[in-house]
């Protein structure tokens, strides 16, 4: 049974008050600034995402994502610079290539790959940050708690 099959089950078990734990790895030069802009503009979004500022998405180790999920995070989000805009030339491309591999691992772990999300959010896209975080939180709520939680 994969996580996908468990969707309904998770929802039933979780009830309406399930608040997912989401770990976010945000690039210092773009997505972290976008989050600052969203805050400064007093845009409101659900407080589920716990942000970790990284210098570049290129420094996000596969093990960071897996560690979070294995420890029971319900979702992991990585936010980096748009293609061509990396502050360190090519870090975001490397991150994309590396982290695409995460999806295969999640499938092997019978976790829904949609619990992992990689987004390009530039420093001026405060509104996009809010949209992505809000949607992702809602998606995870729909999926229910991670089956690895509490193991």
């Amino acid at each position, binding site marked *: 049974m994969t996580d996908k099959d468990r969707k309904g089950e998770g929802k039933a078990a979780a009830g309406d008050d399930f*608040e997912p*734990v989401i*770990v976010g790895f945000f690039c210092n*030069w*773009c997505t972290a*600034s976008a*989050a*600052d802009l*969203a*805050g*400064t503009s*007093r*845009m*409101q*979004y*659900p*407080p589920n995402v*716990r*942000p*970790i*500022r*990284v*210098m*570049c998405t*290129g*420094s*996000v*180790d*596969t*093990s*960071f994502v897996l*560690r*979070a999920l294995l*420890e*029971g*995070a319900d979702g992991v989000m990585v936010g980096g610079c748009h293609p*061509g*805009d*990396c*502050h*360190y*030339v*090519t*870090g975001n491309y*490397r*991150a994309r290539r*590396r982290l695409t591999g995460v999806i295969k691992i999640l499938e092997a772990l019978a976790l829904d790959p949609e619990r992992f999300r990689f987004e390009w959010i*530039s*420093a*001026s896209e405060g509104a996009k940050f*809010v949209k992505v975080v809000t949607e992702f939180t809602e998606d995870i709520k729909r999926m229910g708690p991670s089956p690895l939680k509490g193991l």
Partner: protein
Amino acid sequence: MPRIGVFVCHCGLNIAATVDIAKVIDRVSQHPAVAHAEDYIFMCSDPGQLLVQGKIQELGLDGLVMANCSPTLHERTFRNAAALVGLNPYLVEIANIREAVSWPHMKEPERATEKAIEIILATVEKVRQNTELHTIKVPVTHSVMIIGGGVAGIQAALDCADAGLEVHLVERTSSIGGMMASLSETFPTLDCPQCILTPKMTQAGKHPNIRIHAYSEIEEVSGFVGNFQAKVRHKATYIDWSKCTGCGVCMTVCPTKKIPSEYNHGMANRTAAYIPFPQAVPNRAVIDDKNCLWLLKGKCGICAKKCPAEAIHYEDNTEIEELEIGAIIVATGMEVLPVEHFGEYGLGKIPDVVTGIQFERLLAPSGPTAGKVQRPSDGTEPKEIAFLQCIGSRDPANYKPYCSKVCCMYTGKQAMLYKHAVHDGQAFVFYIDIRSDGKGYEEFIQRAMEEEKVLYIRGKVSKVFEDEGKIVVWGTDTLTGKWIELRVDMVVLATAAVASSGVNELASKLRITTDEHGWLKEAHLKLQPVETLTAGIYLAGAAQFVKDISDTVAQASGAAAKAIALLSKDHLERVPIIACVDQDLCVGCGYCETFCAYGAIAVDPVTGKAEVNEGLCEGCGGCAAHCPSGAATLTNYGKKQVFDMITTFTNGQVVQ
């Protein structure tokens, strides 16, 4: 056990109104590594900093978590404060509980408080594993590259050059001067650009420290603050500028005469071989290869025969020059929305409907009509003109949501200058609001209304069309609620200002960003308006957002001051957060080498282990994520540090 101090700022009510500070202090104090937790209303204030410094000394704290606003604002403040009392600044970390917590979660105080606590505890886990670091000294190149030769670029170039820096002023057209050179007179003083701009242009052209790279564009920029490498493409002029004297014979003989002049914004034509305007700096001709008969078809060649300096060669003399640069100032300015956007106002269809910048050329003594106001269609003197403001501005549904800022003032000026030229003429101005917020600006508008009898009508225009040699303007006067029909001879549209074309490509090359409208993004709108997020790159003038000349010049001097301050030392101190390699773990596979975009990490052929060049490493941390043996790490961003932050978020606390 480490002795970490946690200091929680209320930021007035910005944090305290949402986050339960007492609860935060209580929970954070229970962490075994936290030796002290305290809150204060404004931690960044002098008493706040003194409080922190006092506790460092009194309690012997060996690490700090400052829970307050984003690190972009006060990371440096608190690191400096700690350093002053002997705590290594890299043992201070920020937990952002304002932009990331209290502001975006104002309606959920309980969950916001939980989030704040977790962020602070995660930061405690990080900082307790931080190591002391010392800044790295790197040599700097004492030169500045300024991109864009308008009044912003010229002002910044003169300031930097006067401070003794070597300046490379790169301009994509064949002369510096920019948009200001095309203006008739400038508000609110009515100086003409020939009186106030051309002396600056000449000064820049003759300054021993300034090199103007006219007809040139940026090909590529690499490197980092203090040590950029720029490739500048000198576009093909087909004329040897070392021989060209700017005599203009090529322009007089060139048979291709019907090319719309960029300088005159299409109100006059130019030839294929041309100097854009008589005061051009440098005063050199170029051949436009899209229109030259010789270059297109191999026919003509008359300019080469007639050129007294024998400067014309018809050879593609494109050249790429590499420059070593310490700082970069981007001054690419603005344009107006292209004419094809405004069909409903007849722009591009009715010849006597023109844009504001086109009307400037009709008013300018240096313009095609020598300052006589004439209708483009038949050359007659317009007796009535309607000026329409906010065309494409403040119109989020169709065009741009923002106010283009300079139109109220230049429309008032144009109406005034029109009255000076046509004494019995009548000017009407359709406006939404009049924004005249500069020094002497409101008085200027009042003068236009009261002394020059310009008639201001509050309302927007719905339609503009031709009827029996007149232009009919339909609109509403929203103050009286009456529908209005005017029959005028000319219509001038104050079209929306937009960022210069090509700015997005340039921004990518510089690794700086633009906003959704193409304006270059500053590091902080209020407190760092001339800096970008990329160290060593500054913004001047309308490239950041529409500005009038006064503001442009002020910002240009501001950007120059930043560049001068940066380059005033022989060495730059770089943040020491760079990669390092555990020599015991490294197997010399060289995988890190393939990742690094800067060539900063390489396997030493003698030791067979990877080594980091600290002058080149930018600290992205990519090699650490790429290293299969876990030997490479980014200092103070170690794997264990990140893991413990993650665990704080998933389990609430790291089990010791």
